[in-house]
């Protein structure tokens, strides 16, 4: 049951609904009464993406059509811009892509969801396999149209000593979901960082869902998601870390912190730790609140006007996640994105 299946079969009964525990806050069946017509092929898309100039190679999937995979051969190091574009004529489409990072290879994946059309319905399924000692830094930027429905689902499998670092920058859509499922082998020092940022205004909805399953000893996972919702926007964070039997000495940390900047904005969060192993260090923190009034007064006492003080403190709040991005160019793109999102929303 998934949006992709509904798109492929035209059967609305395939849509996830609020009765599915994992989808209760992002109900698609209640939302979509009809699907738009299938997206036509679209050739010759030329506009530059948000990471233009940072990647050695660009892979474009327009209206769900494009290459089916990316391979980084063993020992090589690549930076790839992977662009999912919903062109102006987009209707409904689903795309699948496999990413293979062979043993010892390194990939910086600058992934963007670029919604140019209106009212499109789209799903992307990514399968990512990291070989032994492979490394992936993935930055996902979403720029979906406000009236679109956009789902991105990733299943990542790590080999021994592989490292995955990910940051999702979500601007929301009518409904938007970025889901990441990671199978974490532990052993040999494999590590996972899964971060997220959402900055939402209007009636936008962003859902960041992650599931990390630790299957071996000594694995580490570090997660930090921060978000801001104003107007009537809604942020959803679901984070689950499963420590399987035998995955002893796992070190897992998960934080989600959100600012609600209006009375009608909403944030729903469900951090979950399921621990079936011994000697495990697991910590999670979850806060949803308003901007710190004391900090605001302190800044105003020093002469900073209210709106400027709020913007400064909000940007600083989100900056903690931006600072964790390893790739310098992408980090600056993310910083600019945050400032622009906050500016657009204020």
């Amino acid at each position, binding site marked *: 049951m998934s949006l992709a299946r509904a798109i492929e079969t035209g059967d609305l009964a395939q849509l996830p609904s609020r009765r599915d525990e994992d989808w209760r806050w992002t109900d698609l069946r209640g939302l979509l009464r009809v699907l738009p017509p299938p997206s036509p092929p679209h050739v010759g898309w030329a506009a530059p993406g948000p990471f233009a100039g940072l990647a050695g190679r660009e892979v474009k999937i327009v209206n769900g059509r494009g290459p089916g995979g990316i391979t980084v051969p063993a020992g090589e190091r690549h930076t790839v811009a992977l662009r999912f574009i919903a062109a102006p004529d987009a209707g409904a489409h689903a795309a699948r892509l496999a990413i293979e990072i062979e043993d010892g290879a390194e990939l910086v994946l600058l992934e963007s969801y670029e919604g140019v059309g209106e009212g499109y319905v789209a799903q992307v399924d990514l399968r990512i396999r990291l070989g032994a000692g492979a490394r992936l830094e993935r930055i996902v930027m979403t720029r979906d149209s406000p009236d679109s429905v956009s789902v991105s689902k990733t299943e990542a499998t790590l080999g021994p000593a592989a490292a995955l670092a990910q940051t999702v920058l979500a601007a929301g859509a009518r409904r938007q979901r970025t889901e990441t499922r990671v199978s974490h082998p532990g052993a040999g020092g494999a590590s996972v960082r899964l971060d997220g940022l959402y900055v939402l205004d209007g009636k936008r909805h962003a859902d960041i869902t992650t599931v990390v399953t630790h299957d071996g000893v000594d694995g580490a996972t570090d997660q930090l998601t921060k978000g801001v919702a104003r107007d009537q926007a809604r942020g959803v964070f679901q984070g689950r870390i499963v420590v399987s039997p035998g995955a002893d000495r796992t070190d897992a940390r998960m934080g989600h912190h959100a600012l609600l900047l209006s009375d009608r904005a909403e944030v729903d969060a469900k951090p979950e730790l399921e621990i079936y192993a011994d000697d495990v260090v697991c910590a999670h923190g979850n806060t949803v609140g308003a901007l710190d*009034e004391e900090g605001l007064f302190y800044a*105003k*006492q*020093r002469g900073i006007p209210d709106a400027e003080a709020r913007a*400064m403190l909000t940007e*600083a709040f989100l900056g903690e996640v931006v600072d964790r991005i390893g790739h310098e160019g992408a980090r600056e793109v993310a910083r600019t994105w945050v400032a622009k999102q906050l500016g657009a929303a204020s």
Partner: protein
Amino acid sequence: MLSIKNLYVAIDGKPILDGLSLDVPAGEVHAVMGPNGAGKSTLSYALAGRPGYETAAGSVTLDGEDLLALEANERAARGVFLSFQYPTEIPGVPALTFIRTAMNAQRRARGEAEISAPEFLRLARAKAATLKIDFDMLKRALNVGFSGGEKKRMEILQMAMISPRFAILDETDSGLDIDALRIVADGVNAMRSADRAMLVITHYQRLLDHIRPDRVHVLAAGRIVASGGPELAHALEREGYDKYAKAAA
């Protein structure tokens, strides 16, 4: 310079400042002393314009201009500075960024040109050196993880850089060892000038040995109950606040 007349401030309906009057002329440093809970911090917040500390009656003017009608940031741009008793942590904002943002916001409000980056850095380096603050500390998020003494020094650094016309120092001495106290006092003394006034709030006479105030006032139960020269501070140190607390009750 600063003139407070018959000021009433209630918090959650409970009167805290109860008809307080005080004048601090330009060029002078006045001390306000009083027991815990007397309303000293309430006075500093009311002067600075903290939400929740609105005045129910009375007036506060700075060089004849009504301060109470202004927002906190507007008061700051007119020259009001508060060194907080408990400085707030500002996560994610480096001290240098914060101070520069503040200085430029004030300058813009006054119709002045912004400070250039090199000029700002030169000023910050010079002031940090006099206050014995490691310059690298100014690259860290303001007050986050700073010790009590470091936070107080950072308040004085901000005062030195912003160069306000009227400064309120709310127990800047508390939590300081004797060396830090001297550095802070030197920083305050360096700010003394004919066109500036200061209100130094303290619980102990210790600080006043280093900052010689022109006048000392006793605040008890929300009012100024006694005023005198620097010798009043010594009398308070000897005799305590009891008789004033009783007199006020």
